[in-house]
């Protein structure tokens, strides 16, 4: 009897391992699958409201939701329109920016020569520009690849979304049935906790990024700083990365400020806006939304983000946090069990 139970346990772990290996071997399937899963988790709370309550309540909620989506999409479309204009303005101004940087570097070279008698031979500006150009050419060469990936995602993401919304319950119960009795309770509870934590984390980070992006954009618009929409968008997106994100998000604004000749552009005011926005995020938004979901030590978070970046790039940096929170739960459970046995 014990032998049969052991075989069942072995087969379950073998099945699990095969799924993990498959996921690593076929990232072209795993990434859209993961993306669809994130969308599913984000929209899951809405499905509860859409499936429960009386018919009138559900209809009213649906109407409110529809109106909400339309009203929230309008400013996003407006922002994207501005984003596009900002980006084209930036590309148009690139030669001018290069010339300005060359001039500034020349002044610096002359200053170093006069002061220290040392002639600077390096030409970092040309180096950076050449690098940018070559990466631009590389980007152009990669466009067909990106397009094919984009079309693949257009096809795959809705397909996976359909699976999550309509088939996942069936698949989930089949998966649960395959879990051996000896580990069922713990696996099921941990799996559910991970799902909840992951969903809550993604929603919390999305809201946090939107709030920060909006704050930065509004602030920059008020002081008349150029590329407010692009910079706000970058600040929001990079904010998804814990601790390192705000610094990365600040760098483009710093570069734009340094390169600008406009006397109205105040670096101090820009810095203050980033500081205030990040302070609001740190003091209000993060403790209220995110820290309740992932109760992790800041050092562990920073180390995890670096490890996640090494393993899976930007996606790895984002998803590593809920995974670490899950492993913390798992180790706590194991530790509790061991302490009882001892």
């Amino acid at each position, binding site marked *: *009897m014990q032998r049969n139970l052991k075989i069942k346990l072995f087969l379950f772990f073998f099945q699990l391992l095969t799924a993990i290996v498959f996921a690593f071997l076929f990232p072209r399937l795993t990434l859209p699958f993961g993306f669809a899963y994130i969308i599913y988790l984000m929209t899951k709370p809405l499905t*509860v409201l859409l499936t429960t309550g009386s018919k009138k309540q559900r209809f009213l909620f649906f109407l409110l939701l529809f109106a909400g989506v339309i009203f929230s999409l309008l400013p996003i479309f407006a922002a994207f329109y501005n984003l596009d204009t900002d980006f084209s303005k930036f590309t148009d101004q690139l030669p001018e920016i290069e010339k300005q940087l060359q001039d500034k570097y020349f002044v610096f070279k002359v200053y170093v020569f006069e002061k220290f008698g040392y002639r600077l031979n390096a030409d970092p500006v040309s180096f950076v520009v050449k690098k940018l150009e070559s990466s631009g050419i590389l980007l152009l060469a990669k466009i067909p690849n990106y397009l094919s990936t984009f079309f693949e995602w257009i096809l795959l993401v809705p397909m996976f979304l359909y699976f999550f919304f309509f088939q996942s319950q069936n698949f989930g119960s089949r998966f649960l*049935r395959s879990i051996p009795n000896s580990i069922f309770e713990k696996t*099921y509870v941990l799996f*559910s906790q991970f799902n*909840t934590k992951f969903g809550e984390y993604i929603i919390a980070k999305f809201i946090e990024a939107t709030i920060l992006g909006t704050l930065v954009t509004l602030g920059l618009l008020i002081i008349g700083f150029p590329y407010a929409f692009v910079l706000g968008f970058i600040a929001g997106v990079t904010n998804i990365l814990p601790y390192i994100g705000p610094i990365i998000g600040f760098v483009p604004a710093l570069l734009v400020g340094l390169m600008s000749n406009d006397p109205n552009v105040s670096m101090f005011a820009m810095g203050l806006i980033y500081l205030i926005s990040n302070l609001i995020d740190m003091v209000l938004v993060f403790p209220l939304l995110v820290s309740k979901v992932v109760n992790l030590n800041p050092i562990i978070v920073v180390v995890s983000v670096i490890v996640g970046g090494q393993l899976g790039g930007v996606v790895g940096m984002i998803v590593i946090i809920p995974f670490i929170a899950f492993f913390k739960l798992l180790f706590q459970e194991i530790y*509790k*069990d061991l302490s009882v046995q001892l």
Partner: protein
Amino acid sequence: MSYERDIMNKGQNSENLTDRLDVPLLKYLWEASPLYFGKKDNYHEFFKKISVLSSFSDNEIRLFTKFLHRREFIADEVIFRQGDSGYGFYFIFEGAVDIYANHLNSNPDDRGDFVIRLDRRQYFGEMGLLEDFNRRSATVVASEHTVLLGIFKPDLEKMLEHYPVLGAKFLRETALIMANRMGQLTREIMSLKRKLKEVEQRI
């Protein structure tokens, strides 16, 4: 509001009863009816005869069964051990289980002293569903081929989120089970104390 009451209210207000044919519901109601002579061993029949869930309406039982997990155990298979973390509450759908307590931690094969045998329609493990860090107070072993219907913490949370009235009702029934067990325990302690006093007086 229960399904039956909803239907009744709609009837009284001369509203349309339903605008689409709910095949799974019709199938369920047919299987639950006394005219159905097919497999009588369905979940509805089973839960109707469990006293603690007697206050549940037919539709509530139908919804409740959606949250259950069917687990099959072979004879002599351990369901859980004393000291394990507990997350679930089980109903015995088929077969029987033996409960053992006071086992020795040092010996994994030791099950402890036999306490009681539970049969079909009996239940165990309700503390696991309610307590935050529950440790199983006894070892439970399947005495024959056994089918259990289990409900676990995540299911209860889901039930409270999707069907709050049903969730609250189930929690009330679970609390009643625990209150009964507590009452039983108190009576046993009282009786033991009385016996201890008698022994002390004799000495």
